[in-house]
């Protein structure tokens, strides 16, 4: 059905209007005067029932959309089934060509049909004209006028509501947080996205301190929205904004005033999630920095290796070349003493002895330095090495000292490991010589060598009953030229333990020690059984 006009059915005045408009419809549809009267009477009968007994009554007049055109009056009434209507309906039924009653679900309506001769000629354009006839018809009474105005208002309100719904639907469907502010900076509207993000309604948002929603590193100079609004300039910024679970995500925040002449300025704004983009940017930046740092590090390592190599080269060359003249100094002092010693007085003999002692010390120092530089230079020659054999070799190298000092050396069973035999011999010799050297006066050295295997690593302990050391010196002990004692008391260069550490580390092992002053020491060497692990 094509609707042309509507009349709400509330009182007697409406009944008059319903009658008049039904007459008019029948008239413009070209029905005879009697037919006009008949149709209008039938409509009035049904309308009266609705006004008297019905609920939310409303009459709609129009043209049927069937092929055989009729003028139609549709009366909606939520209380259609009232038994008191029956008589009126029967009467109306006799007056019109067709009367249909719908009482299904929400739709309770009666439709009255009056056929229009040659009705198939009525065009859509004509219907538009007829609609404007009804709209522009002068009101029949002040009541009619008021009613029309009120209907227009209702229609307008409906349109506004539709438009608002449409607008809301739009803002809610664009994945953007949108909001509006009044001229005071008070939030007047937020869309669904914003509500979901902050978990706060407009009222709640207006109550809190907004700066708390922005990451402290990103907060603008203006402390409040009001301060921003007072500048009356649009703003755009990238801030980390806190969501309702407390996470700060990067957003582009935009706010712009809408200035209307004669009206207070309103503000419109939105927040776009740019977190992914920001994170990516940051990651790329971090990667770049990381790469630069890595390059710098690689460069430093190369430089360090180079300077290390140079240093080793230097140590080797220096110690090697220093040996020659020193050997001559030692030889000639000895030569001097052998040939002319008998002719020297006591003082001269003492001077010569001092010179010879010093040159001997220097020789040992150079020898150790050379050994240290060679330890690093040499690549490990890995072979299965029976540590017990190596240990016995080291002991036999020190046989003279052991006898001299009446030392007792006990060795537990030692395993076969993968390693460089020559280096491990030097390691054992150094530790053994330490144990023999740092003995207490008038106490014969007792050196016990134990071993235990755990997690594919052998831990060898060299325990002695010597003078020991204060453990606070432990970190220094394994570094170059560290001596804990004066050379008048114990000869040495301070290189022995540094060499030990180097050899242990080259075997992917380690060395440490434990001691109490005057109560012996234990040196622990751990060496993996296999090198390729």
């Amino acid at each position: 059905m094509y609707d042309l006009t509507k009349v709400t059915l509330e009182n007697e005045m409406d009944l008059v209007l319903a009658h008049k408009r039904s007459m008019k419809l029948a008239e413009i549809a070209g029905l005879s005067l009697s037919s006009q009267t008949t149709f209008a009477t039938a409509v009035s009968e049904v309308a009266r029932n609705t006004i008297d007994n019905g609920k939310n009554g409303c009459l709609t007049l129009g043209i049927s959309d069937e092929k055989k055109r009729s003028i139609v009056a549709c009366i909606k009434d939520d209380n259609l089934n009232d038994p008191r209507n029956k008589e009126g309906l029967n009467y109306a039924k006799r007056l019109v060509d067709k009367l249909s009653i719908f009482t299904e679900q929400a739709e309770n309506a009666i439709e009255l049909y009056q056929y229009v001769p040659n009705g198939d000629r009525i065009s859509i354009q004509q219907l538009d004209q007829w609609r404007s006839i009804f709209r522009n018809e002068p009101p029949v009474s002040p009541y009619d006028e008021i009613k029309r105005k009120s209907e227009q208002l209702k229609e307008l309100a409906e349109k506004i509501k539709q438009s608002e719904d449409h607008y809301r639907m739009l803002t809610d469907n664009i994945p953007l947080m949108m909001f509006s502010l009044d001229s005071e900076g008070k939030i007047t509207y937020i869309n669904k996205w914003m509500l979901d993000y902050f978990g706060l309604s407009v009222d709640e948002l207006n109550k809190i301190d907004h700066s708390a929603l922005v990451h402290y590193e990103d907060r603008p100079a203006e402390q409040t929205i009001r301060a921003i609004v007072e500048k009356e300039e649009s703003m755009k910024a990238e801030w980390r904004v806190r969501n309702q679970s407390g996470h700060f995500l990067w957003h582009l925040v935009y706010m712009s005033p809408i200035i209307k002449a004669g009206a207070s300025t309103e503000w419109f704004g939105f927040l776009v999630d740019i977190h992914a983009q920001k994170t990516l940017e940051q990651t790329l930046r971090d990667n770049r920095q990381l790469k630069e740092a890595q390059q710098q590090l690689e460069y430093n390592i190369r430089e360090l290796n180079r300077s290390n190599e140079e240093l080793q080269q230097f140590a080797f060359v220096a110690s090697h070349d220093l040996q020659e003249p020193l050997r001559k100094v030692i030889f000639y002092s000895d030569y001097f003493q052998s040939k002319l010693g008998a002719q020297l007085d006591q003082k001269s003999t003492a001077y010569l002895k001092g010179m010879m002692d010093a040159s001997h010390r220097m020789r040992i120092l150079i020898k150790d330095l050379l050994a240290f530089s060679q330890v690093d230079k040499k690549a490990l020659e890995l072979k299965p090495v029976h540590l017990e054999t190596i240990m016995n070799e080291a002991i036999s190298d020190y046989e003279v000292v052991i006898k001299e000092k009446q030392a007792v050396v006990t060795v537990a069973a030692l395993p076969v490991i993968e390693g460089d035999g020559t280096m491990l011999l030097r390691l054992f010799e150094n530790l053994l010589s330490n144990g023999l050297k740092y003995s207490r006066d008038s106490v014969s050295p007792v050196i016990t060598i134990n071993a235990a295997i755990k997690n594919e690593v052998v831990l060898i302990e060299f325990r002695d009953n010597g003078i020991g050391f204060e453990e606070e010196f432990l970190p220094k002990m394994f570094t170059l030229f560290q001596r804990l004692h004066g050379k008048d008391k114990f000869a040495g260069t301070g290189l022995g333990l540094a060499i030990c550490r180097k050899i242990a580390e080259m075997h992917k092992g380690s060395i440490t020690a434990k001691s109490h002053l005057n109560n012996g020491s234990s040196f622990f060497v751990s060496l993996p059984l296999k090198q390729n692990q």
Partner: protein
Amino acid sequence: MTRRSGILLVDDDREDQFIFCDAMNSVDNAQPVHTETNGVDALRYLSSKEHQHLPCVILADLNMPKMTGSELLKQVKINNNLKHIPVVIYTTSVNEMERQACLGLGAHAYITKPLTYSQSIEVAQMIARLCRELQGREGFH
């Protein structure tokens, strides 16, 4: 075959030359010492036609300019005229690998240079004794 006599000392260190010669002069059965300062000159001396007498023993330092002691040793050992002359390596190096390498190349002995006067005498005595033994074995030709 010519009769061999004396010692060829090849060492670029003049002091070591002096020390050895001085020690040699102090021992019984002292042998004459001819000195050269590098392997190239030593080979030239050994192959010179005017030189009638080859040395009993060659005493060679390792670290020398132009030709090292071990290279000289190699050259001597592949030369049919010279290969029977014992080459004694006379060096400051105590490197075991170097020692093994030299003995592998056919060195007669590997002696570390003396640190004391008495050691120098021992070295000289040993070399003199070696010469005497070789001379006694060869006799006169």
